[in-house]
């Protein structure tokens, strides 16, 4: 059961009228969408506005999403087009280097797009990144290994269990405890 199936389960629920399921998709992808939009637009307010527009468009079109591509590939297409349209409406030229959607599809598992431009991150983003890395470094080695194998290397629980020579249940517990520790440091930064 891959990540694509989780997204598809959420899309199915949205298509059945469960709006909270769309909220989960928003919360999952809003930062990636913002990063993508940030390659076209550097003003933080504009990035937020365009990102919001991307998700509104996605919601309005989601009834027609048939699962032929991964959800986030479909979402990324909307994001690219929305950002370009915004620039054109502002009579600004979009960047000459475009995002190759075939590459996006190919790098699906890696969850990491190559930067073609470096937008200026806001202070909160920098602080979040710093907190995450600092907390991970201070974790017990078992927890640190488990979460990096999962979140960076993309291994399944079963594979991690083989690598770490422990039961799958232990892997699940270690990853959760690592996330819980980082979340405890992160939560105050994101209190809304």
């Amino acid at each position, binding site marked *: *059961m*891959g990540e694509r*199936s*989780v997204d598809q*389960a959420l899309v199915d*629920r949205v*298509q059945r*009228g*469960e*709006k*909270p399921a*769309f*909220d989960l998709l*928003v*919360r*999952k992808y*809003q*930062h*990636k*969408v*913002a*990063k*993508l*939009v*940030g390659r076209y637009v550097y003003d933080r307010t504009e990035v*937020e506005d365009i*990102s*919001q527009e991307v*998700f*509104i468009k996605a*919601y*309005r079109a989601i*009834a027609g999403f*048939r*699962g032929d591509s991964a959800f986030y590939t479909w979402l990324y297409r909307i994001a690219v087009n929305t950002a370009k349209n915004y620039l054109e409406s502002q009579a600004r030229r979009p960047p000459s280097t475009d995002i190759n959607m075939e590459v996006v599809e190919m790098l699906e598992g890696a*969850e990491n797009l190559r930067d073609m431009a470096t*937008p200026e*991150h*806001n202070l*909160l*983003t920098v602080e*979040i*990144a710093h907190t*995450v*890395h600092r907390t*991970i470094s201070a974790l017990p080695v078992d927890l640190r290994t488990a*979460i*990096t194998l*999962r*979140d960076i290397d993309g291994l*399944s*629980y079963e594979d991690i269990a083989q690598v770490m020579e422990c039961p799958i249940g232990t892997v*699940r517990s270690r990853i*959760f405890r690592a*996330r819980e520790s*980082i*979340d405890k440091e*992160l939560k105050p930064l*994101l209190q*809304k």
Partner: protein
Amino acid sequence: MVDAEMTEHISALMDSELSELERARVLKALARDRDLRETWERYHIIRAALNEDLGPVSSTDLGARIAERIGQFPSPELKGGVHRWKPAMRWAGNLALAASVAAVAILSVQWFVSSEPSWTPQQVASARLRQADIQRRGLRWDTRQPEVARQLNMYLVEHNEFMPTSGMNGVMSYGRFVSYDNGP
């Protein structure tokens, strides 16, 4: 207050490591509880930060603003009222459709070839002799010959259900077989 057991399930959900039953239960809980949804979001922020894939993080709740706006729209309906088939089911559906078309084609040809319900054995034999004659002399029947004209007329009568005006569309075009003129 967030339930620790549920947050562990959320952690497993984002790794796609839940059974379908567990997944349904957790998604239901997430739909009801905003705190749980924010936990889900933070776990994804952690993953994005680890992968240096974190975009500008909004200090305001973008998710809440979007939820408020989509609340104004009606719920999406599947386009055309057609249920979206899972890829495996779509493939099976296409295969079934292709098999049905092939079966109809085969049965129609078989029926067409074998159906001479009102021809007597003598008539069939006569038609076959005539066919051999045609093959010997060419592909067209010479309707100036009375016997040929009579056979062709019988043919027309026997297969008039394939006429376009009958409302039945056969696999073989009626006109292709019976619309001979008198020839050169």
